[in-house]
């Protein structure tokens, strides 16, 4: 794991403004930024742990807790909001058996993230599972989509 970190950090050696790209790449590789990871990055880059935490907690993209294997982004942007994003979120939580304050399923398969806008407002309401976008949703379509996604990953 830290060999991997070393490689990533080394790529940015001698470049300017690299903390965010490093954190992005590490998160892509490891799913989230653990306490250990942040300490190692600090040692490798000479950037203070406090500064790294400062940056990691400022940007909504960085996650400090383990996440489900697949990320479901639900759009809470303006167009989706006025087109019923709330009922889509309820349907998602229902389908995945999540309580009001949970974001990750018990089997650690899915994490739900609320995001501001996915840029597909014309198809509102919209969700994105990994890098696939689903538009013109109704709450009735959600169980189907989750089922189909599960089948796809089981076979592929």
């Amino acid at each position, binding site marked *: 794991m830290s060999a991997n970190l070393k490689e990533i950090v080394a790529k940015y050696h001698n470049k300017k403004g690299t903390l965010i790209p490093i954190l992005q790449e590490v998160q892509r590789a490891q799913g989230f930024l653990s306490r250990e990871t942040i300490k190692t990055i600090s040692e490798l880059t000479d950037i203070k742990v406090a500064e790294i935490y400062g940056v990691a907690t400022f*940007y909504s*993209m960085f996650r400090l807790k383990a996440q489900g294997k697949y990320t479901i982004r639900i759009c809470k942007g*303006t*167009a989706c909001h*006025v*087109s019923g994003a709330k009922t889509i979120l309820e349907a998602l939580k229902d389908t995945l058996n999540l309580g009001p304050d949970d974001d990750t399923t018990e089997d650690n398969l899915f994490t739900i993230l609320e*995001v501001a806008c996915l840029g597909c*407002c014309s198809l509102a309401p919209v969700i994105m599972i990994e890098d696939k*976008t689903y538009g013109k949703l109704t709450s009735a379509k959600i169980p189907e989509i989750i089922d189909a996604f599960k089948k796809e990953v089981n076979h592929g």
Partner: protein
Amino acid sequence: MAKVQIKVGMASCGLAAGAQVIYDEVKRILAEHDYGFELKHTACNGMCHVEPLIEVVTDEGSDAVYGNLESSDLLSIFDTLKAGNIEHSKLIYSNKIDAPENYLLESQTRIVLRNCGVIDPVLIDEYIAREGYSALKKALQMSGEEIIETITKSGLRGRGGAGFPTGLKWKFAYNNKSDKKYVICNADEGDPGAFMDRSVLEGDPHGIIEGMIIGAYAIGADEGYLYVRAEYPLAIKHLNIAIKQAEERGFLGDNILGTDFSFHLHIKEGAGAFVCGEETALMASVEGKRGMPNLRPPFPAESGLWQYPTNINNVETWANITWIILNGAEEFAKLGTEKSKGTKVFALAGKIRNSGLIEVPMGITLQDVIYKVGGGMKTDSPFKAVQLGGPSGGCVPASLLDTIVDYDSISQTGAIMGSGGMVVMDYETCMVDVAKFFLNFTQNESCGKCTFCRIGTKRMLEILEKITSGQGVEEDIAILETLSEKIITTSLCGLGQTAPNPVLTTLRYFRDEYEAHIIDKRCPAHVCSDLLTYHIIADKCIGCTACARVCPVNCISGEVKKPHLINQDSCIKCGSCYKACKFSAIEIR
């Protein structure tokens, strides 16, 4: 027989609507049958509401769009084309014959979007074939001053929201002598409900890059950044490809086209912070720090990225540059109004029929944008308001639809031109809920530096929550107004300075809705669930028991085949009975 090209619109929006399935099917059909058509990728032509779509272009000059496609439509469309015809039930637009949505393109003027949905964005030769990089060649024959003079004369103003004159901004950066300068493209597009920049980034990346190279040459910069929000993976992919291609062809890098001008361009991916769209915060973020805004002056033109003079413009601003250089400042200035020249791209969304991307000349009325180009409402419920400018903007009511699209006229309504997001709302949208939605957004995104922005927005949000849950009192409106004024006057950056706008404009035009919530404890749009009550209309209820069976708290009673009754004290207002009733016997009040 004419040579036929089939282009599948495969931008994010098209893909979400199922364009990949259509593409694969076209490919399969063309491989198995002998149509002799050529298959191509393209991005978004703006007609998102009929996606997935294909555009069919022939060498005889016919251009047709077929939309709302299912795979099963393709064979019959291809047979039609093979027979030399255009007419088909899925025909949306044609430049030869009458088609249902010809008006959609005819009322537009495309400068920024001229290549979007036309070329394959990852093929540089298609861009070059449409005059790509000839503006750069022309610009390299001009001096920096001449270019800046051209941009100034064109009247182009920044499309990122504030509308600052672009030529003037370039001049400031030009006048600051330094051996290092930067240019930045602001592609953070944070306004939720807007996707103009995404479409241009995905559909015409070279157009933006060429504009930036010209800008860099004019002000004397040798390095640039494209700051793109992380939610736009396809845009980032296309930009990466385009930069590499431009470098290979000598348009980017050292000694561009054999001159002694060198320019290097990098992509920075955002990490999810709305405030990073603000220019000083954006630069802090590029430097790898928390994206907190700084006090201006010094302006970026004096001391920007790593303290060097920096010129930052929005995606759409950059995308106008090549056209102005090629066609001249006068041509550009012919379009628009006295103080707002050229065109504006809008992303239409919400309850509008033709949601998608349009580009119209400045000076057109909002009425025409919504009813002519946008096709009017998609729901049965009438138009109530259009939200312009996102979290910094406001809601314009029906009575002001004759307002023209120009920076100053829109500002007079209390909204702002903003970056071009237009979310249309009908009578099923609650304006207090919309105000709460935006306050929730800005409150979340406030970086926390200024007290009133950090805490004031929180207090305003709490008051709006109180009002929408039926706990509001009449004094709340005055408190909202006082807090708004304080937040506006004491915030350092545009986020706080504009955060109260959604509340102020809805208070200005829809005060009666606030009062209905506060005094009558009623939500006229039936959105705020705490204020709704569900009732069974005895005359319509046939006693099928469907509602009683779905009620999660068992608060519906009644005998089979007799009208049922909802016990208001235990009802949790989940709406399940309303959805379950097949006889419209449940009424929301």
